[in-house]
């Protein structure tokens, strides 16, 4: 095999290993966290970054043909679909869990949240001015 072939194998394998490591991190996070809204952070990472790394590695292995273009189409579709499915899942949890306030802070009125965030920003600005 020539030098170019070896470079192709090394770069593709690096992307594939990256993808597998991200999948493993996803699994670790899903088993480590205790609540589904925390687990969703880890799960959504694998759905976008993990599968993208794996498929880019496979694209490098495949060379330049129609298979590569189809894999690119899968990546584009997943980048649109995966955040939507995560959002719908989070909405399912927020709708059906009646004891949600035990798990996280809930603001009934959005104005209260906006005022609190504005207050935080103001204090941060004041601190930065003092520094």
């Amino acid at each position, binding site marked *: 095999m020539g030098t170019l072939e070896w470079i192709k*194998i090394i770069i*593709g*394998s690096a992307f*594939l290993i990256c*993808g*597998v490591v991200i*999948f*493993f991190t*996803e*699994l670790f996070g*899903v*088993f480590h966290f205790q609540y*589904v809204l925390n*687990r*969703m952070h880890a*799960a959504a990472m*694998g*759905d976008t970054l*993990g*599968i993208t790394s*794996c*498929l880019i590695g*496979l694209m490098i*292995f*495949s060379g330049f*043909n*129609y*298979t590569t273009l*189809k*894999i690119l*189409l*899968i990546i584009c*579709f*997943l980048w649109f*679909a*995966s955040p*939507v*499915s995560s959002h*719908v*899942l*989070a*909405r*399912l*949890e927020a*709708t*059906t*869990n009646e004891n949600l306030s035990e798990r996280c802070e809930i603001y009934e009125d959005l104005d209260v949240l906006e005022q609190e965030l504005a207050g935080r920003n103001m204090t941060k600005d004041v601190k930065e001015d003092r520094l």
Partner: protein
Amino acid sequence: MIYHTIYITMLILLSFMLLACLIRAVRGPLIADRLMAVNMMGTMVMVMIAVLALMLKEGYLIDICLIYAMISFLAVVVLSKVYIGIYEEKHHKKDSDNDHTVKGDLSDGNA
């Protein structure tokens, strides 16, 4: 030969992770846990199908991978909407009858 070794290693690693996802889907206490685990399993199966397509040198398996992505996305969205609709239907039965008829139609539309 070296490509074959890489593909086989990928498939073995992914199949072990798939088993771990299945354990999460069985153990998950909430409905959202199980749906999330099914979503993760769909992602890993997609990578496995893509690896198989390159290993067997059959380009049309990539089309199956694309269809699998669409159906997996559809399954998660539809199941979430169905469970939200069921919950709202149960919740609104406690209200008065007028509210029930109006909101029952809405929840049917959502489901």
